[in-house]
């Protein structure tokens, strides 16, 4: 785990309420977990809920994309490497 503290707080999934709780339940049902990034984006749940299914479909195979997860992950690895991103 990185030592750095997020600049915007990470929401405790168990303590979430309202639209954020609905968002986390829906994400858990789709992905089996709530990633840290979504615990932060969850501060703006009505915007995050539109982004999350796009992320899922564009990155993976099986729900509409015409490319394999493998090929797309190669793209993601190159992109993140060039951007020097550790996440």
């Amino acid at each position, binding site marked *: *785990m990185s030592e750095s503290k997020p600049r915007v707080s990470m929401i405790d999934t168990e303590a979430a309420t309202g639209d954020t709780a609905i968002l986390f339940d829906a*994400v858990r049902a789709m*992905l089996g977990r709530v990633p840290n990034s979504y615990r932060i984006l969850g501060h703006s749940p009505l915007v995050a809920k539109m982004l*999350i299914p796009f992320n899922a479909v564009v990155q993976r195979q099986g729900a509409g994309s015409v*490319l394999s997860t493998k090929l797309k992950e*190669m793209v993601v690895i*190159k992109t993140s490497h060039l951007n020097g991103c550790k*996440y």
Partner: protein
Amino acid sequence: MAHNTSLGQAAGISDDQVEVIGTDDYMESPHLNAREKAAVLWAEHVTRNTARSRDDVFEIVRQQFNEAEIIDLTLICCFFNMFNRVTDSLKMPIEMQSEVDKIKASVNLDPAKVKSYLETVVAKWPQRFPKPAPD
């Protein structure tokens, strides 16, 4: 990169492939096929924003991918350019390796789960929406 190396390995990307993708010599690598090289090349030029002026690069991509594939390729690259900027700017912490590894279960996205997600979003549609804060 942690999440994506993990998902990439689950999707069948080898350690040799991960390593060569991170170098400048990937176009000569025996570890990548022609389609994989073209995809990584496109990712590099889209990310550096040199794609628009490089017709020679696009020609290599066009020889390997049809138009629908080019759209998906460009969208995944641009989505991660956006997401990288978000995670870096907000200093999002990387998760424990055990948590990162859970992403491996999701190489294949079940369309029924996406449908169920969208149905939940519609069923729980808010009664009221927030008013924007004053500028």
